[in-house]
């Protein structure tokens, strides 16, 4: 178990961070939030290989693992960049790697890795544990509006659907930097993939939840850094407001919760890579990091005072992402419920 970042991971972080600070600084993201996904940035991330890290080289990917994917997620969380990373590079890709014996799945993985195509997994973003069925209207699907191909679970089998053949209706999203859409594939031609579809989707939800924990850590880190910088600079009562102990303690608590959250998120990424202790690691990380990120974003707004309530300050983008991430792929409560039997703390008394 390695909970640190390797040198390779640090290099990867540096190059992704470079690209994002150049192309997706908070002010840039804010200025373009009402125009959907940033396809140019998404293309660059794919060219860097950042969208296929956990796909083996034989399948056209980078042959790294979820640890590296998690590092990218962290940086994307820090910038709340509007790219379909979760829907395409994590969820849809994870399903396809589980069904890679099917030639259509393999072909799509190659196209995804080369950045030629974007996919989305058609389940409500709030899904956890049970696999929803993709027939009829599926609501609140992440990154669907940006997808060319839809990956749809239907009665235990995963189907591929050309997005142009489905009805994809963008909806106004609480998280403006990860738009959701409603999807209906009724009547669309589909390509069924061989292999255990439900297992593939379930594994993708677990991977997604584990990777989201790292996104939440990156998001919380931005909130902490931005708040600390503001408390040093903002003066009231003739002194920096950060000199008030009440506020020092608040950011010290945030820092402490981030130390813990980062360890849990790294553990989840490591477990997803090695396959050891995955379920416990993911549910610990997702339940803890969800709460830590929401709290960091809420504190960021509060400690900025009136500025924090304005549209022109980017704090709200992080608040909205944090709140949506809390719901995404299982709320903290649902992850604790998943954890309970795994750690022998059942709710029901044994008869």
């Amino acid at each position, binding site marked *: 178990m390695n909970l640190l970042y390797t040198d390779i991971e640090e290099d990867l972080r540096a190059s992704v961070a470079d690209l994002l600070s150049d192309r997706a600084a908070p002010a840039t993201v804010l200025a373009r939030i009402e125009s959907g996904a940033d396809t140019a940035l998404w293309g660059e991330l794919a060219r860097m290989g950042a969208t296929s890290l956990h796909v083996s080289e034989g399948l056209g990917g980078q042959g790294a693992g979820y640890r590296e994917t998690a590092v990218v997620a962290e940086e994307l969380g820090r910038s709340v960049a509007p790219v379909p990373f979760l829907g395409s590079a994590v969820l849809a890709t994870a399903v396809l790697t589980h069904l890679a014996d099917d030639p259509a799945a393999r072909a799509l993985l190659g196209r995804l890795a080369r950045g030629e195509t974007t996919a989305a997994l058609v389940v*409500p973003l709030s899904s956890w544990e049970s696999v929803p069925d993709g027939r009829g209207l599926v609501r*609140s699907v992440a990154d669907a509006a940006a997808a060319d191909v839809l990956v749809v679970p239907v009665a235990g089998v995963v189907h591929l659907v050309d997005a142009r053949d489905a009805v994809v209706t963008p909806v106004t999203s609480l998280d403006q930097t990860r738009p959701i859409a409603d999807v209906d594939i009724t009547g669309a031609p589909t390509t069924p993939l061989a292999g255990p579809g439900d297992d593939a989707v379930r594994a993708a939800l677990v991977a997604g939840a584990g990777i989201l924990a790292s996104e939440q850590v990156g998001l919380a880190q931005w909130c902490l850094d931005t708040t600390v910088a503001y408390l040093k600079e903002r003066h009231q009562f*003739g002194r920096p407001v950060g000199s008030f102990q009440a506020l020092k303690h608040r950011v010290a608590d945030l820092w402490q919760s981030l130390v813990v959250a980062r360890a849990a998120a790294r553990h989840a990424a490591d477990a997803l890579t090695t396959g050891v202790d995955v379920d416990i690691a993911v549910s610990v990380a997702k339940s803890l990091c969800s709460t830590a990120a929401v709290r960091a974003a809420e504190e960021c707004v509060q400690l900025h005072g009136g500025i*924090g*309530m304005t549209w022109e300050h980017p704090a*709200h983008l992080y608040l909205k992402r944090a*709140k949506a991430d809390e*719901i995404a792929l299982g709320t903290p*409560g649902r992850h604790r419920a998943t954890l309970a039997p795994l750690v022998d703390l059942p709710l029901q008394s044994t008869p």
Partner: protein
Amino acid sequence: MSEIQDRVAALLAANDPATTDRLEFLRARFDAGLAWVHFPVGLGGMAAPRDAQPVVDQALAAAGAPDNSPRRIGIGLGMAAPTILAHGTDEQRLRFLRPLWTGEEVWCQLFSEPGAGSDLAALGTRARRDGDDWVVTGQKVWTSSAHNARWAILVARTDPDVPKHAGITYFVCDMTAPGVDVRPLRQITGEAEFNEVFLTDVRIPDAHRVGEVGAGWRIAQTTLMNERVAIGGRPVPREGGMVGVVADTWRAHPERRTAATHDRLLELWVESEALRLAGIRLRQQLAAGSPGPEGSAMKLGFARLAQALSGLEVEFLAEDGLRYDDWTQRRPAMVDFTGRDAGYRYLRAKGNSIEGGTSEVLRNIIAERVLGLPTEPRVDKDVPWKDLPR
């Protein structure tokens, strides 16, 4: 009590709500002393105890009488009116209170500035005497409802040579006067509920000064204490406000219920009920007097619960919680903490711990003024305002 009932009956007999124009009815109600019964005779009241008000409100509502849309004129009712009553001249009371109460004239609050939020006393908007007028120049910010307002309560610096608390004067500012420039500021909800207000050589007659020159800080305390009670201490029925909205959401969605959310909801329900009872106790203690620092505790509890409840609601709604009704930059006619959808309520509630004094500042007030703990060492208290570092 029977006198009040008689008056209500007389008002209704003379002004049938079914046939009387809304504004005519509200004016008649004011003139009958039934607007705010604890106000003096002749100013919309009858010098009765505050707790007689619900009797009037309920009897009139039952008779189908129009109300004055209190949410649309919250700043006037909750802040400007008690301040003008306590510190204004007779002419000011007679001029301002009636149209304020009927809603014919909306009020806003020109207090905060970019450099003076929690440290309101550091404000830099200047008012200089010129004959019978004052000439005011400066910038205010976060001004709710300025776009609808006819009048503002304004604090400005009249003497920069004395320490900051001593050189402030309180005014009523005409929002239609030349030199008042209101610009929308968009909030995280998408709405432009508040504004920046630029004041450039705005002339305010000395007759619109409230209280003595230099007494503005003390008078502003009346406004702020009332503001905190207005935000956090309003009388509500059981399950009124945010807890009721979230309880309804719970009842409407049996399919989403879990043991964990159930326990959290009930915990917050109990706290909301207890805070409501604390508000009743506070009002009973204060039946005669005006609100003191204890009102701050109500606003503190209100903000915390509004945030926790609305946060729980979004989470509980799961795939629906991921959606938002509308990001359009609207100019709302009123501030509605519990309106629209769950996402809006969650985002708007974030302002509850900032507006009207932040929760951190309220904790300082409780610690220092209620509990008597020593204040922080102050570098800025005895220095002339003009020499303060900025």
